[in-house]
């Protein structure tokens, strides 16, 4: 048995496993960046990573703190302007997977990163959408990673920053969207995939040591479980070693800054 792992490590590794060498991936900062680079350094060496600052096919050896650190540009195949990034590469349909997260998510994987409370008199003003509204509809499919909590997994989100499956069913298609939307939601407890018909996010795999009660307690809606639920394989020693090595390199490179 490999050594013990943290729930966040399990989440990052489960997200990394979802990526393939053939993917062209639009990467966000934080957990998505860790997962994408872990995939590149383990089972998906040829994956193409794109950051919205304009860096195409970047291969950072450390995790950037921001979306546009010099490390991304230094190791990229090429760097394009931001309008070109959003027009040709994202809107042009060149990206197979987009990674998103959020402050709030609902059962159809619509995301809120804009505001808690009302828009005009916000209780908490969040950073806003950034690239997410168009990433959510222009990438071939969307993976979402979020730490499971009742505060974040809510029955109704306060603001729709980016479209998941809308009201469910064929809502995306009715809006004229041809991409798949959220196909996987990876948390620190389990993995959800959308139901084939209703598109409600449904638990398909539970991480080692996690119970259904834990998932139910941390979700603000009545969780649906697939008929066949898999056990998420525990992180392997090579996966854990690679992930910890990335974080150690990042910490060293940023000195006392990381």
């Amino acid at each position, binding site marked *: 048995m490999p050594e013990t792992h943290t729930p966040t490590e399990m989440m990052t590794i489960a997200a990394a496993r979802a990526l393939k060498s053939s993917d062209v991936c639009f990467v966000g900062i934080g957990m998505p960046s860790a997962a994408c680079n872990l995939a590149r350094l383990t089972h998906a060496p040829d994956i193409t990573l794109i950051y919205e600052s304009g860096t195409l096919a970047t291969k950072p050896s450390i995790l950037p*703190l921001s979306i*546009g*650190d010099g490390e991304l540009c230094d190791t990229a195949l090429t760097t394009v302007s931001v*309008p070109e990034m959003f027009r040709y590469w994202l809107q042009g349909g060149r990206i197979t997977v987009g990674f998103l997260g959020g402050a709030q998510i609902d059962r159809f994987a619509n995301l809120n990163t804009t505001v808690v409370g009302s828009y005009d008199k916000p209780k908490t003003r969040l*950073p806003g959408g950034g690239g997410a*509204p168009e990433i959510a509809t222009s990438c071939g499919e969307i993976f979402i990673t979020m730490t499971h909590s009742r505060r974040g997994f809510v029955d109704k989100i306060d603001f*729709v920053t980016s479209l998941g499956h809308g009201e469910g069913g064929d809502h995306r298609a009715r809006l004229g969207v041809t991409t798949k939307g959220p196909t996987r939601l990876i948390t620190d407890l389990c993995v959800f995939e959308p139901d084939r018909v209703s598109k409600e996010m449904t638990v398909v795999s539970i991480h080692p040591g996690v119970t259904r009660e834990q998932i139910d307690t941390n979700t603000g809606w009545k969780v649906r479980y697939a008929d066949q639920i898999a056990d998420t394989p525990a992180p392997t020693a090579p996966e854990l070693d690679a992930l910890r090595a990335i974080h150690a390199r990042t910490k060293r490179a940023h000195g006392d800054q990381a």
Partner: protein
Amino acid sequence: MAQFMSLAAAVEANIRDGDTLAMEGFTHLIPHAAGHEVIRQRRRRLTLIRMTPDLIYDQLIGMGCADKAVFSWCGNPGVGSLHRMRDAIENGWPGPLAYEEHSHSAMANAYEAGAAGLPCAVFRGYIGVDLPKVNPNIKSIVCPYTGETLATVPAIRPDVAVIHALRADRAGNVLLEGIVGVQKQAVLAAKRSIVTVEEIVDDFGARNLNAVILPAWTVTAVVCVPGGAHPSYAQGYYKRDNAYYKKWDAISRDRDGFLAWMKTNVLDKGPEAFAAERRRLAAV
């Protein structure tokens, strides 16, 4: 035609109270020194346009220079919130801040439309989301060829664009390399522009034939401010000061602490302070 000026003179001559001002730079090359000069000259009622307001607008907003912000992502990258901007939005301190919020796609397209002399940008976006419900400047248009409904936003045409670039030559031509963001579009979309640079050279020398160059006749003022992008970075000159971005979280959380910090580090200083930061970071 570009004029070489001091930073104080360039801001004095080109940025007026009530202007719409776009200070761009996508993580890389953020014109912080120019932002500090705007604060020192106590400009008021500015409309601040920027995709990612970042620390530069957190400082301007906290010092009361703006009454409106146009943006698409208002965070401290990799760290968290912009506390001064949030305080203005949530509590109206130091004054109320109106805002117009977009997505990155919309703003990138709107800058490009501005540079292209078009009245609006057209793109595929804002589908199934709430921003169009709260921002009346987001509308739709039907493609006359295919019938597809597309999003449209007004072109960004700022009174003034301010950017930081790597080098200018003696004629005032400006060179940008690395992550170039929307700076070229912002300058070409604006009525006036100020470009701060790391250095002024006799000749750009060997360079990529497709390098991003803003010809001297597209720029109003060129100012040499070594380190002028700190705490962001200048490719080949100095790295991003990630520690500063992290420290800003604590500095900006508290109103009095923020004001005290701004007095010591901005109001009582000048652009030469940036050169010291560049020397320090280049040595790291």
